[in-house]
Protein backbone atom coordinates (compact mmCIF):
# COMPACT_ATOMS: atom_id res chain seq x y z
CA UNK A 1 0.00 0.00 0.00
CA UNK A 2 2.73 2.43 1.00
CA UNK A 3 4.68 1.65 -2.14
CA UNK A 4 1.66 2.11 -4.32
CA UNK A 5 1.14 5.62 -2.93
CA UNK A 6 4.79 6.48 -3.42
CA UNK A 7 4.59 5.31 -6.99
CA UNK A 8 1.44 7.34 -7.54
CA UNK A 9 2.90 10.49 -6.01
CA UNK A 10 6.04 10.12 -8.04
CA UNK A 11 4.03 9.66 -11.23
CA UNK A 12 1.95 12.75 -10.53
CA UNK A 13 4.94 14.93 -9.73
CA UNK A 14 6.93 13.75 -12.74
CA UNK A 15 3.90 14.39 -14.95
CA UNK A 16 3.48 17.94 -13.69
CA UNK A 17 7.18 18.70 -14.05
CA UNK A 18 7.23 17.33 -17.60
CA UNK A 19 4.01 19.19 -18.39
CA UNK A 20 5.60 22.48 -17.39
CA UNK A 21 8.13 22.07 -20.18
CA UNK A 22 5.47 21.04 -22.68
CA UNK A 23 3.60 24.19 -21.72
CA UNK A 24 6.49 26.35 -22.80
CA UNK A 25 6.46 24.80 -26.28
CA UNK A 26 2.69 25.04 -26.52
CA UNK A 27 2.69 28.68 -25.45
CA UNK A 28 4.96 29.34 -28.41
CA UNK A 29 2.42 27.72 -30.67
CA UNK A 30 -0.56 29.48 -29.14
CA UNK A 31 1.11 32.87 -29.56
CA UNK A 32 1.65 32.21 -33.26
CA UNK A 33 -1.88 30.89 -33.70
CA UNK A 34 -3.38 33.82 -31.87
CA UNK A 35 -1.65 36.52 -33.87
CA UNK A 36 -1.42 34.88 -37.27
CA UNK A 37 -4.59 32.77 -37.21
CA UNK A 38 -2.71 29.91 -38.78
CA UNK A 39 -1.91 26.40 -37.70
CA UNK A 40 1.84 25.98 -37.63
CA UNK A 41 2.66 22.37 -38.42
CA UNK A 42 6.37 23.22 -38.38
CA UNK A 43 6.33 24.05 -34.68
CA UNK A 44 7.70 20.68 -33.59
CA UNK A 45 10.41 20.96 -36.23
CA UNK A 46 11.41 24.30 -34.68
CA UNK A 47 11.63 22.57 -31.29
CA UNK A 48 13.79 19.91 -32.90
CA UNK A 49 16.13 22.45 -34.51
CA UNK A 50 16.45 24.22 -31.18
CA UNK A 51 17.38 20.93 -29.55
CA UNK A 52 20.07 20.31 -32.15
CA UNK A 53 21.55 23.77 -31.60
CA UNK A 54 21.78 23.08 -27.88
CA UNK A 55 23.11 19.61 -28.63
CA UNK A 56 25.91 20.99 -30.82
CA UNK A 57 26.83 23.51 -28.14
CA UNK A 58 27.01 20.72 -25.62
CA UNK A 59 28.93 18.06 -27.56
CA UNK A 60 31.19 20.26 -29.66
CA UNK A 61 31.89 23.10 -27.26
CA UNK A 62 31.12 21.54 -23.91
CA UNK A 63 28.43 24.11 -23.11
CA UNK A 64 25.91 22.93 -20.55
CA UNK A 65 22.40 22.53 -22.10
CA UNK A 66 20.93 25.03 -19.65
CA UNK A 67 23.44 27.62 -20.89
CA UNK A 68 23.19 26.38 -24.47
CA UNK A 69 19.50 27.20 -24.55
CA UNK A 70 20.38 30.87 -24.41
CA UNK A 71 22.23 30.38 -27.66
CA UNK A 72 19.47 28.27 -29.20
CA UNK A 73 16.77 30.82 -28.37
CA UNK A 74 18.17 33.80 -30.32
CA UNK A 75 19.12 31.49 -33.19
CA UNK A 76 15.56 30.20 -33.41
CA UNK A 77 14.13 33.69 -32.91
CA UNK A 78 16.01 34.77 -36.00
CA UNK A 79 15.00 31.65 -37.92
CA UNK A 80 11.35 32.21 -36.97
CA UNK A 81 11.45 35.84 -38.07
CA UNK A 82 12.98 34.89 -41.41
CA UNK A 83 10.46 32.12 -42.07
CA UNK A 84 7.58 34.44 -41.25
CA UNK A 85 8.85 37.41 -43.21
CA UNK A 86 10.09 35.72 -46.35
CA UNK A 87 7.83 32.69 -46.62
CA UNK A 88 4.53 32.69 -44.74
CA UNK A 89 3.96 36.42 -45.03
CA UNK A 90 4.28 36.23 -48.80
CA UNK A 91 1.14 34.14 -48.98
CA UNK A 92 -1.00 37.05 -47.85
CA UNK A 93 -0.88 38.40 -51.39
CA UNK A 94 -1.14 35.03 -53.10
CA UNK A 95 -4.58 34.00 -54.30
CA UNK A 96 -4.90 30.29 -53.77
CA UNK A 97 -7.89 28.00 -54.24
CA UNK A 98 -7.24 26.20 -50.98
CA UNK A 99 -7.47 28.52 -48.00
CA UNK A 100 -5.20 26.12 -46.13
CA UNK A 101 -2.16 27.00 -48.21
CA UNK A 102 -0.45 28.61 -45.23
CA UNK A 103 -0.84 25.39 -43.28
CA UNK A 104 0.55 23.48 -46.24
CA UNK A 105 3.49 25.84 -46.42
CA UNK A 106 4.30 25.05 -42.82
CA UNK A 107 4.27 21.37 -43.83
CA UNK A 108 6.84 22.20 -46.50
CA UNK A 109 8.92 24.11 -43.96
CA UNK A 110 8.66 21.16 -41.59
CA UNK A 111 9.96 18.84 -44.32
CA UNK A 112 12.86 21.15 -45.13
CA UNK A 113 13.89 21.57 -41.51
CA UNK A 114 13.60 17.87 -40.69
CA UNK A 115 15.39 16.68 -43.80
CA UNK A 116 18.00 19.42 -43.58
CA UNK A 117 18.89 18.25 -40.10
CA UNK A 118 18.85 14.64 -41.26
CA UNK A 119 21.38 15.50 -43.96
CA UNK A 120 23.87 16.65 -41.35
CA UNK A 121 23.11 14.39 -38.43
CA UNK A 122 21.65 11.26 -40.06
CA UNK A 123 18.73 9.56 -38.37
CA UNK A 124 20.85 8.48 -35.37
CA UNK A 125 19.43 8.72 -31.89
CA UNK A 126 21.48 11.11 -29.83
CA UNK A 127 21.42 12.23 -26.24
CA UNK A 128 23.22 14.72 -24.06
CA UNK A 129 25.01 13.38 -21.03
CA UNK A 130 25.69 15.77 -18.18
CA UNK A 131 27.19 15.09 -14.81
CA UNK A 132 23.78 15.42 -13.18
CA UNK A 133 21.66 13.64 -15.83
CA UNK A 134 21.04 10.60 -13.70
CA UNK A 135 20.95 12.39 -10.34
CA UNK A 136 17.75 12.38 -8.35
CA UNK A 137 16.39 14.42 -5.51
CA UNK A 138 14.27 12.89 -2.80
CA UNK A 139 10.96 14.23 -1.68
CA UNK A 140 10.11 12.05 1.26
CA UNK A 141 10.42 8.59 -0.22
CA UNK A 142 9.80 9.77 -3.77
CA UNK A 143 12.78 10.18 -6.05
CA UNK A 144 12.57 12.81 -8.77
CA UNK A 145 15.12 13.23 -11.55
CA UNK A 146 17.15 16.45 -11.34
CA UNK A 147 16.78 17.55 -15.01
CA UNK A 148 13.00 17.37 -14.54
CA UNK A 149 13.14 19.71 -11.58
CA UNK A 150 15.53 22.21 -13.16
CA UNK A 151 13.61 22.11 -16.42
CA UNK A 152 10.32 22.78 -14.70
CA UNK A 153 11.68 25.71 -12.68
CA UNK A 154 13.19 27.35 -15.75
CA UNK A 155 10.02 26.72 -17.78
CA UNK A 156 7.84 28.32 -15.10
CA UNK A 157 10.21 31.27 -14.86
CA UNK A 158 9.97 31.80 -18.60
CA UNK A 159 6.19 31.51 -18.51
CA UNK A 160 6.05 34.14 -15.81
CA UNK A 161 8.47 36.44 -17.65
CA UNK A 162 6.46 36.03 -20.84
CA UNK A 163 3.29 36.89 -18.99
CA UNK A 164 4.94 40.06 -17.66
CA UNK A 165 6.18 40.87 -21.15
CA UNK A 166 2.74 40.47 -22.68
CA UNK A 167 0.92 42.48 -20.02
CA UNK A 168 3.41 45.16 -19.04
CA UNK A 169 5.43 46.19 -22.10
CA UNK A 170 4.22 48.13 -25.13
CA UNK A 171 5.45 45.47 -27.52
CA UNK A 172 3.71 42.76 -25.53
CA UNK A 173 0.49 44.74 -25.45
CA UNK A 174 0.69 45.25 -29.20
CA UNK A 175 1.01 41.49 -29.64
CA UNK A 176 -2.06 40.87 -27.53
CA UNK A 177 -4.01 43.58 -29.33
CA UNK A 178 -3.12 42.14 -32.73
CA UNK A 179 -4.16 38.75 -31.51
CA UNK A 180 -7.57 39.98 -30.39
CA UNK A 181 -8.45 42.13 -33.36
CA UNK A 182 -5.91 42.74 -36.07
CA UNK A 183 -7.89 45.42 -37.90
CA UNK A 184 -8.55 47.39 -34.76
CA UNK A 185 -4.89 47.09 -33.75
CA UNK A 186 -3.82 48.42 -37.13
CA UNK A 187 -6.16 51.39 -36.73
CA UNK A 188 -4.57 52.10 -33.38
CA UNK A 189 -1.22 52.38 -35.09
CA UNK A 190 0.21 48.92 -34.50
CA UNK A 191 2.64 47.86 -37.21
CA UNK A 192 1.06 44.49 -37.75
CA UNK A 193 3.63 42.99 -40.10
CA UNK A 194 6.40 43.76 -37.61
CA UNK A 195 4.36 42.35 -34.75
CA UNK A 196 3.58 39.20 -36.68
CA UNK A 197 7.25 38.66 -37.45
CA UNK A 198 8.32 39.20 -33.86
CA UNK A 199 5.57 36.90 -32.62
CA UNK A 200 6.67 34.11 -34.90
CA UNK A 201 10.25 34.62 -33.76
CA UNK A 202 9.15 34.62 -30.15
CA UNK A 203 7.14 31.45 -30.65
CA UNK A 204 10.15 29.78 -32.24
CA UNK A 205 12.41 30.94 -29.38
CA UNK A 206 10.01 29.47 -26.82
CA UNK A 207 9.97 26.24 -28.82
CA UNK A 208 13.75 26.19 -28.65
CA UNK A 209 13.70 26.87 -24.91
CA UNK A 210 11.25 24.03 -24.26
CA UNK A 211 13.22 21.71 -26.51
CA UNK A 212 16.50 22.50 -24.79
CA UNK A 213 14.97 21.83 -21.39
CA UNK A 214 13.71 18.46 -22.62
CA UNK A 215 17.04 17.57 -24.22
CA UNK A 216 18.46 15.79 -21.16
CA UNK A 217 15.25 13.74 -20.95
CA UNK A 218 14.51 12.76 -24.56
CA UNK A 219 16.42 11.04 -27.32
CA UNK A 220 17.15 13.44 -30.14
CA UNK A 221 16.54 12.51 -33.78
CA UNK A 222 15.25 14.46 -36.79
CA UNK A 223 11.68 13.12 -36.58
CA UNK A 224 11.27 13.96 -32.88
CA UNK A 225 9.56 17.17 -33.99
CA UNK A 226 6.33 15.40 -34.99
CA UNK A 227 5.89 14.33 -31.40
CA UNK A 228 6.08 17.92 -30.19
CA UNK A 229 3.81 19.25 -32.92
CA UNK A 230 1.15 16.75 -31.90
CA UNK A 231 1.52 17.49 -28.19
CA UNK A 232 1.46 21.25 -28.54
CA UNK A 233 -1.61 20.98 -30.72
CA UNK A 234 -3.58 19.01 -28.22
CA UNK A 235 -2.45 21.39 -25.49
CA UNK A 236 -3.38 24.51 -27.45
CA UNK A 237 -6.79 23.17 -28.39
CA UNK A 238 -7.37 22.06 -24.80
CA UNK A 239 -6.32 25.38 -23.37
CA UNK A 240 -8.29 27.51 -25.78
CA UNK A 241 -6.42 29.20 -28.57
CA UNK A 242 -4.30 32.23 -27.99
CA UNK A 243 -4.51 31.91 -24.23
CA UNK A 244 -1.13 31.78 -22.52
CA UNK A 245 -2.49 30.49 -19.24
CA UNK A 246 -4.73 28.04 -21.04
CA UNK A 247 -1.68 26.59 -22.73
CA UNK A 248 0.24 26.47 -19.45
CA UNK A 249 -2.54 24.54 -17.75
CA UNK A 250 -3.15 22.38 -20.83
CA UNK A 251 0.54 21.46 -20.76
CA UNK A 252 0.29 20.32 -17.16
CA UNK A 253 -2.80 18.25 -17.95
CA UNK A 254 -1.09 16.55 -20.87
CA UNK A 255 2.12 15.91 -18.93
CA UNK A 256 0.11 14.47 -16.07
CA UNK A 257 -2.12 12.24 -18.19
CA UNK A 258 0.89 11.05 -20.18
CA UNK A 259 2.79 10.16 -17.05
CA UNK A 260 -0.21 8.44 -15.46
CA UNK A 261 -0.98 6.69 -18.74
CA UNK A 262 2.54 5.38 -19.12
CA UNK A 263 2.47 3.99 -15.59
CA UNK A 264 -1.03 2.57 -15.48
CA UNK A 265 -2.39 2.00 -19.01
CA UNK A 266 -0.96 -0.42 -21.54
CA UNK A 267 1.07 1.37 -24.20
CA UNK A 268 -0.76 0.37 -27.38
CA UNK A 269 -3.98 2.40 -27.27
CA UNK A 270 -2.60 5.28 -25.21
CA UNK A 271 -2.21 7.53 -28.23
CA UNK A 272 -5.67 6.64 -29.49
CA UNK A 273 -7.17 7.98 -26.27
CA UNK A 274 -5.26 11.22 -26.77
CA UNK A 275 -6.49 11.60 -30.34
CA UNK A 276 -10.10 10.83 -29.44
CA UNK A 277 -9.89 13.45 -26.70
CA UNK A 278 -8.52 15.87 -29.26
CA UNK A 279 -11.47 15.33 -31.60
CA UNK A 280 -13.97 15.58 -28.77
CA UNK A 281 -12.48 18.90 -27.68
CA UNK A 282 -12.61 20.16 -31.28
CA UNK A 283 -16.27 19.22 -31.53
CA UNK A 284 -17.64 20.11 -28.15
CA UNK A 285 -15.36 22.71 -26.57
CA UNK A 286 -14.86 25.22 -29.31
CA UNK A 287 -13.99 27.85 -26.72
CA UNK A 288 -11.27 29.84 -28.38
CA UNK A 289 -11.70 28.05 -31.63
CA UNK A 290 -14.51 30.09 -33.09
CA UNK A 291 -12.43 33.20 -33.37
CA UNK A 292 -10.08 31.33 -35.66
CA UNK A 293 -12.77 29.89 -37.86
CA UNK A 294 -14.39 33.26 -38.40
CA UNK A 295 -11.26 35.26 -39.22
Amino acid sequence: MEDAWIKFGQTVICGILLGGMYSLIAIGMTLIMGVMKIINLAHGALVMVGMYVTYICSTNYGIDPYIGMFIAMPVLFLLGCLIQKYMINRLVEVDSILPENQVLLTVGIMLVLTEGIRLFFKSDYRSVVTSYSSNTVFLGDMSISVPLVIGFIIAMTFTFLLHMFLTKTDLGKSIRATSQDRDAAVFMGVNSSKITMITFGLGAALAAAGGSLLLPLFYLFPDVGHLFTAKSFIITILGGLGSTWGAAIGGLVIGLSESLGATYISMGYKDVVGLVMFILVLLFLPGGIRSLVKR
Partner: protein
Amino acid sequence: MLNKKNMLMTIVFALIALVLPLVINAPYQQHILILVLIWATIGTAWNLLSGYAGQVSFGHAAFFGVGAYSAGILTLHYSLSPWWGLILGPVMSMLIALPIGAIAFRLRGPYFALATLALGEIFRLVFLNMTEFTNGAKGILIMPSITSKIIYYYAGLGMLAVTLLVTYLIVHSKIGYYLVSIREDQDAATSLGIPTTLYKNLALLPSAFFTGLAGAFYMNYVAFIDPNIVFNLTNISIMVILVVMLGGVATTWGPTIGAALYIIMGELFRTTLGSANVLVFGVLVCLIIMFLPNGIAGELDIIKRIAQRKKAGLSGGV
Protein backbone atom coordinates in the same frame (compact mmCIF):
# COMPACT_ATOMS: atom_id res chain seq x y z
CA MET B 1 -16.62 23.06 -70.57
CA LEU B 2 -15.96 20.06 -72.75
CA ASN B 3 -14.19 21.82 -75.57
CA LYS B 4 -12.25 20.48 -78.50
CA LYS B 5 -8.87 21.26 -77.01
CA ASN B 6 -9.70 19.25 -73.92
CA MET B 7 -10.95 16.31 -75.97
CA LEU B 8 -7.82 16.35 -78.07
CA MET B 9 -5.61 16.44 -75.01
CA THR B 10 -7.49 13.52 -73.49
CA ILE B 11 -7.09 11.43 -76.63
CA VAL B 12 -3.40 12.23 -76.86
CA PHE B 13 -2.90 11.39 -73.19
CA ALA B 14 -4.81 8.14 -73.58
CA LEU B 15 -2.83 7.06 -76.64
CA ILE B 16 0.49 7.82 -74.96
CA ALA B 17 -0.63 5.93 -71.86
CA LEU B 18 -1.67 2.92 -73.92
CA VAL B 19 1.58 2.52 -75.84
CA LEU B 20 3.94 3.66 -73.07
CA PRO B 21 4.68 0.23 -71.56
CA LEU B 22 5.43 -1.14 -75.03
CA VAL B 23 8.09 1.50 -75.53
CA ILE B 24 9.41 1.43 -71.98
CA ASN B 25 9.89 -2.22 -71.28
CA ALA B 26 12.46 -2.31 -68.52
CA PRO B 27 10.73 -3.70 -65.39
CA TYR B 28 12.10 -0.91 -63.19
CA GLN B 29 10.70 1.82 -65.41
CA GLN B 30 7.39 0.01 -65.71
CA HIS B 31 7.32 -0.16 -61.93
CA ILE B 32 7.70 3.62 -61.83
CA LEU B 33 4.81 3.99 -64.27
CA ILE B 34 2.57 1.80 -62.12
CA LEU B 35 3.38 3.89 -59.05
CA VAL B 36 2.45 6.99 -61.03
CA LEU B 37 -0.93 5.42 -61.83
CA ILE B 38 -1.59 4.60 -58.17
CA TRP B 39 -0.67 8.09 -57.02
CA ALA B 40 -2.62 9.72 -59.82
CA THR B 41 -5.69 7.79 -58.69
CA ILE B 42 -5.30 8.84 -55.04
CA GLY B 43 -4.61 12.41 -56.13
CA THR B 44 -7.67 12.55 -58.39
CA ALA B 45 -9.85 11.15 -55.62
CA TRP B 46 -8.48 13.59 -53.04
CA ASN B 47 -8.93 16.45 -55.49
CA LEU B 48 -12.67 15.87 -55.69
CA LEU B 49 -13.20 16.41 -51.97
CA SER B 50 -10.44 18.87 -51.23
CA GLY B 51 -9.74 20.67 -54.49
CA TYR B 52 -13.27 21.10 -55.82
CA ALA B 53 -15.31 21.04 -52.62
CA GLY B 54 -12.54 22.78 -50.63
CA GLN B 55 -12.67 20.37 -47.68
CA VAL B 56 -8.94 19.84 -47.23
CA SER B 57 -8.48 16.32 -45.90
CA PHE B 58 -5.31 15.47 -43.99
CA GLY B 59 -6.52 11.93 -43.44
CA HIS B 60 -6.83 10.19 -46.79
CA ALA B 61 -4.39 7.53 -45.62
CA ALA B 62 -7.35 6.09 -43.67
CA PHE B 63 -9.14 5.27 -46.94
CA PHE B 64 -5.99 4.06 -48.67
CA GLY B 65 -5.07 1.88 -45.71
CA VAL B 66 -8.53 0.40 -45.25
CA GLY B 67 -8.62 -0.42 -48.97
CA ALA B 68 -5.24 -2.10 -48.79
CA TYR B 69 -6.08 -4.01 -45.62
CA SER B 70 -9.41 -5.18 -47.02
CA ALA B 71 -7.49 -6.95 -49.76
CA GLY B 72 -4.80 -8.19 -47.39
CA ILE B 73 -7.19 -9.53 -44.76
CA LEU B 74 -9.25 -11.42 -47.33
CA THR B 75 -6.13 -13.40 -48.11
CA LEU B 76 -4.80 -13.62 -44.57
CA HIS B 77 -7.97 -14.84 -42.86
CA TYR B 78 -10.24 -16.14 -45.57
CA SER B 79 -7.72 -17.44 -48.12
CA LEU B 80 -9.48 -15.54 -50.87
CA SER B 81 -7.68 -13.97 -53.78
CA PRO B 82 -6.62 -10.41 -52.90
CA TRP B 83 -8.17 -9.34 -56.18
CA TRP B 84 -11.55 -9.49 -54.42
CA GLY B 85 -10.16 -6.62 -52.41
CA LEU B 86 -10.68 -4.41 -55.45
CA ILE B 87 -14.39 -4.75 -54.71
CA LEU B 88 -14.33 -4.99 -50.92
CA GLY B 89 -11.65 -2.32 -50.38
CA PRO B 90 -13.48 0.63 -51.93
CA VAL B 91 -16.74 -0.41 -50.27
CA MET B 92 -15.09 -0.58 -46.85
CA SER B 93 -13.47 2.79 -47.44
CA MET B 94 -16.87 4.28 -48.21
CA LEU B 95 -18.28 2.71 -45.08
CA ILE B 96 -15.64 4.30 -42.85
CA ALA B 97 -16.12 7.55 -44.74
CA LEU B 98 -19.64 7.84 -43.36
CA PRO B 99 -18.68 8.26 -39.68
CA ILE B 100 -15.59 10.27 -40.65
CA GLY B 101 -17.81 12.67 -42.58
CA ALA B 102 -20.36 12.78 -39.79
CA ILE B 103 -17.64 13.93 -37.37
CA ALA B 104 -15.42 16.09 -39.54
CA PHE B 105 -18.10 17.95 -41.51
CA ARG B 106 -19.27 19.50 -38.28
CA LEU B 107 -16.09 21.55 -38.45
CA ARG B 108 -14.94 24.12 -40.95
CA GLY B 109 -11.63 25.10 -42.53
CA PRO B 110 -8.49 24.37 -40.55
CA TYR B 111 -10.48 22.49 -37.92
CA PHE B 112 -11.84 20.11 -40.52
CA ALA B 113 -8.25 19.51 -41.60
CA LEU B 114 -7.16 18.84 -38.01
CA ALA B 115 -10.03 16.46 -37.33
CA THR B 116 -9.28 14.41 -40.46
CA LEU B 117 -5.62 14.34 -39.46
CA ALA B 118 -6.50 12.95 -36.05
CA LEU B 119 -9.00 10.46 -37.51
CA GLY B 120 -6.41 9.19 -39.99
CA GLU B 121 -3.93 8.66 -37.17
CA ILE B 122 -6.54 6.81 -35.12
CA PHE B 123 -6.94 4.32 -37.96
CA ARG B 124 -3.20 3.76 -38.12
CA LEU B 125 -2.97 3.14 -34.39
CA VAL B 126 -5.98 0.84 -34.33
CA PHE B 127 -4.67 -1.27 -37.20
CA LEU B 128 -1.29 -1.33 -35.49
CA ASN B 129 -2.79 -2.58 -32.25
CA MET B 130 -5.43 -5.02 -33.46
CA THR B 131 -2.67 -7.55 -33.93
CA GLU B 132 -4.91 -10.63 -34.15
CA PHE B 133 -6.92 -9.25 -36.98
CA THR B 134 -4.27 -7.26 -38.85
CA ASN B 135 -0.96 -8.85 -37.87
CA GLY B 136 -0.04 -5.51 -36.29
CA ALA B 137 3.31 -3.98 -37.12
CA LYS B 138 4.44 -7.23 -38.74
CA GLY B 139 2.18 -6.43 -41.65
CA ILE B 140 0.67 -8.69 -44.27
CA LEU B 141 2.70 -10.40 -46.95
CA ILE B 142 0.94 -12.16 -49.83
CA MET B 143 2.15 -14.21 -52.76
CA PRO B 144 1.08 -12.34 -55.88
CA SER B 145 -0.61 -14.57 -58.46
CA ILE B 146 0.41 -12.31 -61.31
CA THR B 147 3.95 -11.07 -61.72
CA SER B 148 3.83 -9.48 -65.15
CA LYS B 149 4.22 -5.74 -64.82
CA ILE B 150 2.33 -5.13 -68.05
CA ILE B 151 -0.86 -6.54 -66.57
CA TYR B 152 -0.58 -4.35 -63.49
CA TYR B 153 0.11 -1.40 -65.70
CA TYR B 154 -3.04 -1.82 -67.75
CA ALA B 155 -5.14 -2.64 -64.70
CA GLY B 156 -3.82 0.50 -63.02
CA LEU B 157 -4.49 2.51 -66.15
CA GLY B 158 -8.06 1.25 -66.17
CA MET B 159 -8.42 2.22 -62.51
CA LEU B 160 -7.14 5.75 -63.18
CA ALA B 161 -9.31 6.10 -66.28
CA VAL B 162 -12.46 5.19 -64.35
CA THR B 163 -11.50 7.53 -61.52
CA LEU B 164 -10.85 10.40 -63.91
CA LEU B 165 -14.08 9.77 -65.79
CA VAL B 166 -16.29 9.57 -62.72
CA THR B 167 -14.66 12.65 -61.20
CA TYR B 168 -15.04 14.51 -64.46
CA LEU B 169 -18.72 13.62 -64.72
CA ILE B 170 -19.36 14.68 -61.12
CA VAL B 171 -17.49 17.94 -61.48
CA HIS B 172 -19.27 18.87 -64.69
CA SER B 173 -22.74 18.26 -63.32
CA LYS B 174 -24.95 20.16 -60.92
CA ILE B 175 -23.07 18.47 -58.07
CA GLY B 176 -19.81 19.98 -59.31
CA TYR B 177 -21.26 23.49 -59.38
CA TYR B 178 -22.57 22.97 -55.87
CA LEU B 179 -19.23 21.64 -54.60
CA VAL B 180 -17.34 24.64 -55.94
CA SER B 181 -20.00 26.96 -54.51
CA ILE B 182 -19.50 25.40 -51.10
CA ARG B 183 -15.75 25.87 -51.39
CA GLU B 184 -16.06 29.49 -52.45
CA ASP B 185 -18.51 30.53 -49.73
CA GLN B 186 -20.41 28.14 -47.53
CA ASP B 187 -22.85 30.76 -46.23
CA ALA B 188 -23.69 31.94 -49.73
CA ALA B 189 -24.16 28.32 -50.77
CA THR B 190 -26.59 27.72 -47.93
CA SER B 191 -28.50 30.86 -48.85
CA LEU B 192 -28.93 29.43 -52.37
CA GLY B 193 -30.62 26.38 -50.91
CA ILE B 194 -27.63 24.05 -51.13
CA PRO B 195 -27.66 21.41 -48.37
CA THR B 196 -23.93 21.73 -47.76
CA THR B 197 -23.36 18.69 -45.55
CA LEU B 198 -25.15 16.41 -48.01
CA TYR B 199 -23.07 17.65 -50.92
CA LYS B 200 -19.83 17.43 -48.96
CA ASN B 201 -20.69 13.78 -48.40
CA LEU B 202 -21.41 13.38 -52.10
CA ALA B 203 -17.81 14.44 -52.66
CA LEU B 204 -16.38 12.43 -49.78
CA LEU B 205 -17.91 9.07 -50.71
CA PRO B 206 -16.52 8.76 -54.25
CA SER B 207 -13.26 10.23 -52.98
CA ALA B 208 -13.03 7.51 -50.33
CA PHE B 209 -14.14 4.87 -52.84
CA PHE B 210 -11.35 5.53 -55.32
CA THR B 211 -8.71 6.04 -52.65
CA GLY B 212 -9.72 2.65 -51.23
CA LEU B 213 -9.54 1.17 -54.71
CA ALA B 214 -6.01 2.48 -55.09
CA GLY B 215 -5.17 0.97 -51.70
CA ALA B 216 -6.48 -2.46 -52.68
CA PHE B 217 -4.60 -2.25 -55.95
CA TYR B 218 -1.44 -1.33 -54.05
CA MET B 219 -1.78 -4.43 -51.85
CA ASN B 220 -2.10 -6.62 -54.93
CA TYR B 221 0.81 -5.02 -56.68
CA VAL B 222 3.34 -4.50 -53.89
CA ALA B 223 2.20 -7.64 -51.99
CA PHE B 224 3.31 -6.29 -48.62
CA ILE B 225 1.66 -3.78 -46.32
CA ASP B 226 1.96 -2.69 -42.73
CA PRO B 227 0.05 0.07 -40.90
CA ASN B 228 3.03 2.41 -40.88
CA ILE B 229 3.21 2.22 -44.67
CA VAL B 230 -0.40 2.44 -45.83
CA PHE B 231 -1.75 4.63 -43.01
CA ASN B 232 1.26 6.92 -43.01
CA LEU B 233 0.47 10.55 -42.25
CA THR B 234 3.46 12.12 -43.97
CA ASN B 235 3.97 9.70 -46.83
CA ILE B 236 0.32 9.25 -47.78
CA SER B 237 -2.05 11.83 -46.29
CA ILE B 238 0.20 14.85 -46.59
CA MET B 239 2.00 13.63 -49.68
CA VAL B 240 -1.23 13.41 -51.67
CA ILE B 241 -1.95 17.05 -50.81
CA LEU B 242 1.47 18.07 -52.02
CA VAL B 243 1.14 15.95 -55.17
CA VAL B 244 -2.11 17.67 -56.12
CA MET B 245 -0.80 21.12 -55.21
CA LEU B 246 2.17 20.43 -57.42
CA GLY B 247 0.06 19.37 -60.38
CA GLY B 248 -2.93 21.64 -60.04
CA VAL B 249 -5.71 21.95 -57.48
CA ALA B 250 -9.25 21.59 -58.85
CA THR B 251 -8.14 20.69 -62.36
CA THR B 252 -8.83 17.47 -64.26
CA TRP B 253 -5.26 16.59 -65.12
CA GLY B 254 -3.47 18.28 -62.24
CA PRO B 255 -3.32 15.25 -59.94
CA THR B 256 -1.98 13.04 -62.74
CA ILE B 257 0.65 15.58 -63.68
CA GLY B 258 1.55 16.00 -60.02
CA ALA B 259 1.81 12.25 -59.49
CA ALA B 260 4.05 11.82 -62.53
CA LEU B 261 6.32 14.64 -61.40
CA TYR B 262 6.42 13.45 -57.80
CA ILE B 263 7.28 9.83 -58.61
CA ILE B 264 9.71 10.58 -61.42
CA MET B 265 11.41 13.39 -59.53
CA GLY B 266 11.54 11.22 -56.46
CA GLU B 267 13.34 8.51 -58.37
CA LEU B 268 15.68 10.98 -60.05
CA PHE B 269 16.49 12.67 -56.77
CA ARG B 270 16.97 9.36 -55.05
CA THR B 271 19.52 8.21 -57.60
CA THR B 272 21.33 11.52 -58.02
CA LEU B 273 21.04 13.19 -54.62
CA GLY B 274 20.92 10.20 -52.33
CA SER B 275 19.60 10.99 -48.90
CA ALA B 276 18.95 14.65 -49.74
CA ASN B 277 16.05 13.78 -52.02
CA VAL B 278 13.28 14.52 -49.53
CA LEU B 279 14.96 17.80 -48.64
CA VAL B 280 14.94 18.90 -52.27
CA PHE B 281 11.32 17.82 -52.51
CA GLY B 282 10.48 19.90 -49.44
CA VAL B 283 12.17 22.96 -50.92
CA LEU B 284 10.22 22.41 -54.12
CA VAL B 285 6.95 22.19 -52.18
CA CYS B 286 7.65 25.52 -50.48
CA LEU B 287 8.49 27.16 -53.79
CA ILE B 288 5.35 25.80 -55.47
CA ILE B 289 3.08 27.00 -52.68
CA MET B 290 4.70 30.41 -52.70
CA PHE B 291 4.90 30.97 -56.42
CA LEU B 292 2.43 28.60 -58.09
CA PRO B 293 -0.18 28.18 -55.35
CA ASN B 294 -2.65 26.43 -57.62
CA GLY B 295 -0.15 24.03 -59.15
CA ILE B 296 1.23 23.65 -62.62
CA ALA B 297 -2.09 22.95 -64.34
CA GLY B 298 -3.83 25.58 -62.21
CA GLU B 299 -1.42 28.35 -63.09
CA LEU B 300 -0.95 27.68 -66.78
CA ASP B 301 -1.83 31.31 -67.51
CA ILE B 302 0.91 32.58 -65.21
CA ILE B 303 3.43 30.12 -66.59
CA LYS B 304 2.54 31.10 -70.15
CA ARG B 305 2.80 34.75 -69.31
CA ILE B 306 6.25 34.30 -67.77
CA ALA B 307 7.39 32.28 -70.78
CA GLN B 308 6.09 34.93 -73.15
CA ARG B 309 7.70 37.71 -71.21
CA LYS B 310 11.00 35.87 -71.46
CA LYS B 311 10.57 35.41 -75.19
CA ALA B 312 9.66 39.05 -75.64
CA GLY B 313 12.63 40.03 -73.55
CA LEU B 314 14.93 37.93 -75.67
CA SER B 315 13.75 39.19 -79.02
CA GLY B 316 13.90 42.72 -77.69
CA GLY B 317 17.45 42.14 -76.57
CA VAL B 318 18.64 40.67 -79.82
